[in-house]
């Protein structure tokens, strides 16, 4: 069993020319955790990964593995396994030679190399392919070998750089499960870079959402989805509706605020843990699946957060239906996950509603 290693980044900065690719980020990856770096392209997530791997040196800040300073340790001395986006399998070596290369470098004796190669090939379910060359493997198989090559050296930390981006949709789903299984089985501290939020939400123990070289939020998938820290996170993860307004009233005993929108509606929102002052300009974020569409207002015994709308577009997906509603002089997206009961059609005058608990309020800076 691998020794569990904790990875810590403190105020790490790396620039290319005048551009700060990574701008003073700090994060803490616990032992055995599957940690995701998630963000749009160019947000600095791959740079962060390469800093941890040692391919770049930080200009500022510290990188620590189990409290040991790694800043000046070259990549080949870090005992880090890395899976590259393009797999980087050496085309002039067989699968077996690819996998045992790292062992040879470490001076592992031949008989032990054979044993370890067999073990790791079994873990990735590729026992039969040891004598093949990389160009004789499919994309998914190459991906497994790249993973095996990184695992066989029993790394302290496993780094995955968009490992699934070159696979087709179906294989991607299967491989997701596979990587998660292997990671849990071996309990290696793993840092996984992706721009695919579904990958991150479905696999991660913890996610760091990055944007423009900074970390916007770190948390569990549920945290990040349900309590996004700011507008960027709310907009980047999942779909949402943003509604602008001003704080009109604060009901402290219920930790509720009333927000008056630009078009005059009042939105009630629960704000646990945040404080606002009257008159402050804010942005409300409401997920489409939290919005219910009602045919008529009297059937619902509710007086707050109920607004009239007109169905502009309705798209049926089988497992759900998506509405585009015309309300508050804008388009409001809504999703209904049990479309069987729905009798709505485009052009209908309807109402929509949502729970104050489902509104996230952000200060507009």
């Amino acid at each position: 069993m691998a020794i569990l290693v904790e990875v810590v980044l403190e105020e790490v900065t790396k620039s290319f020319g005048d551009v700060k690719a990574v701008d003073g980020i700090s994060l803490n990856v616990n032992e055995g955790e599957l940690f995701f770096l998630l963000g749009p392209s160019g947000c600095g997530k791959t740079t962060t990964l390469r800093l941890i791997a040692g391919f770049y040196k930080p200009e500022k800040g510290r990188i620590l593995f189990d409290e040991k300073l790694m800043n000046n340790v070259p990549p080949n001395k870090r005992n880090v396994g890395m899976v590259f986006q393009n797999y980087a399998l050496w085309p002039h070596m067989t699968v077996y030679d690819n996998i045992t290369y790292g062992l040879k470098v470490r001076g592992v004796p031949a008989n032990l190399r054979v044993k370890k190669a067999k073990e790791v090939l079994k873990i990735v379910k590729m026992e039969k392919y040891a004598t093949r060359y990389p160009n004789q493997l499919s994309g998914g198989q190459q991906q497994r070998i790249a993973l095996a090559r990184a695992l066989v050296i029993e790394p302290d930390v496993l780094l995955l750089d968009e490992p699934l981006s070159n696979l087709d949709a179906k294989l991607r789903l299967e491989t997701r499960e596979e990587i998660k299984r292997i990671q849990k089985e071996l309990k290696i501290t793993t840092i996984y870079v992706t721009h695919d939020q579904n990958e991150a939400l479905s696999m991660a123990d913890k996610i760091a959402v990055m944007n423009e070289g900074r970390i916007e939020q770190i948390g569990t998938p549920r945290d990040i989805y349900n309590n996004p820290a700011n507008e960027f996170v709310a907009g980047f993860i999942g779909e949402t509706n943003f509604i602008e307004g001003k704080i009109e009233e604060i009901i402290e005993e219920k930790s509720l605020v009333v927000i008056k929108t630009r078009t005059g509606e009042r939105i009630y929102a629960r704000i646990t843990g945040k404080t606002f002052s009257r008159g402050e300009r804010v942005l409300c974020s409401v997920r489409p699946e939290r919005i219910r569409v009602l045919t008529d207002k009297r059937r619902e015994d509710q007086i707050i957060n109920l607004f009239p709308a007109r169905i502009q577009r309705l798209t049926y997906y089988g497992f759900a239906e998506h509405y585009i509603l015309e309300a508050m002089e804008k388009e409001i997206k809504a999703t209904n996950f049990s479309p069987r009961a729905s009798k709505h059609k485009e052009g209908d005058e309807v109402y929509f509603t949502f729970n104050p608990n489902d509104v996230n309020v952000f200060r507009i800076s």
Partner: protein
Amino acid sequence: MNITRRFALREIDWKTLSLFLLIMMFFSVFLFLPILYVFKGALFVNGQFTLLYFALMFQDAFYRESILNSVKIGIFATILTSLISIPTALLMVRYDFPGKRILQGLLLVPLVMPPFVGAIGMKQLFARYGSVNLLLMKLNLISEPIDWFGGGFIGIIILEALHLYPYLYLNISAALANIDPTLEEQAENLGASGFRLFRTVTLPLMFPGYIAGAIIVFIWAFTDLGTPLIFEYRKALPPIIFSMVKDIWTNPMGYALTVFTLIISVSFVVAARRYAGGRSYEMLGRGHITPRVRRITGWKTPIIYAFIILMVLAAMTPQISVILTSLAEQWFLTVLPTAYSLRYYEVALTHEVTAISILNSLKYSLLSTAIDVMLGVLIGYLLARRSFPGKDILDAVAMLPLAIPGIVIAFGYVSVFTGTPIDPFYDPTLLLIISYSVRRLPYTVRAAYAGFQQTSVSLEEASLSVGASQARTLFSITIPLIMANVIAGGIMSFSAAMMEVSTSMILANREAFYPITKAIYSVNLRLGDGPYVASALGIVGTIIVTSCLLAANKLLGKSMGELFRA
């Protein structure tokens, strides 16, 4: 803003920078300094700045005519070369037919023999009392012998074209093979076909490749020294410059003519680059390209075969004539030799001057290739894998030798190094080796650079990440992956060094140091068996080079054409 081009002081990698500076020192001593001396020799006489010799050059009718002749030779040879290679490349790339591979191979045969060796054989066939005239007179088709060579002028153009068209053919083929077929299919889909399709889509797309090859052809024909010497054609720049090497300390005219040759060559390259540079297109590839190859059918078949076979025959005439000459025991005033023997090969392989010249050439070329491979891998590595201030300069400098004629370099070497411990009149070994390597360095740089480009950096990073050191990564990952390219580039520069004419002619001045090319030239002047022995020696050299090129072709495949570009 381009991120990679801006450097803060703290980011400079001093190891890389010092390598860069070392390489630049090499170029400074063996490329820039000689050129500087040539300029100095032409512009400063007795310490005084003067343009007198340039004025003289244009006032004197002989010089004026010679300059004009050389430019004409360059241009006409390029036109003739284009007329041969464009249709040939189009046919070869676009059509499939039985025997194509053999014909393709035969089309490359002229690469293996410098044009001046071909000229020795061609004189047997086409001279005033050569085989062709004799045959025609025998058949009573003509009564007076025809001057096929046009006093040497036409002979030079034809020989240059027949030797140089493979370079252009390879460039055009590579460019054509690179055109995404969907671009043409789209044009056809919109209603274009035939010549219109060629003119509006195919031609513009292959043009940058064509220009890159054509400029090499021009410079080569414009500055080739060997062929005019064999034809005893004195009214051209290279032979005049050659004759002035001995007066280098007394007559600045040689410098002025050399400067002029350099200026014309470089301006043609610059103009061509300007023109083609803005028109080079990245192919928006979808992975790999399936070329549009059709089988020929119907009435086109005999026409295409006739054309290609005619081309192959024309291209091989110099080679065949040299082989015939080398095997002829007696060939004087008859259509074909009257008796055959191998005795001139025996002479070529045993005669003092010729035998040692083979060894000399092998020695010079092997050493110059070793330098080229080392420098080529190093420069290719720096260009492909490192960022440092001055990268653009290194790239430009490494490719510069393609634009600089050999006679200019050689003339500069004589001027810089006479009287030093490596005086070319005393022992030219070192200067020959270095001049060969400087001239052919672009081949190995390009080959190595392409190797690094095709090899993803992450392959090296993967090796580091599993614990291998930089050195181990270099030897077990990087070098094995770029090996084929490096070997191929090395073979190209070796072959070229074996056949190097202009610098060999000028720098090797004592028989003991003659390389093959100079020995061929000097033996040819010998009365009696001169041309026969020279031809035999030429064939020996050709055999060596052919085997090298076959090896390179096997390693490089299609991409061979891309090595010969300006």
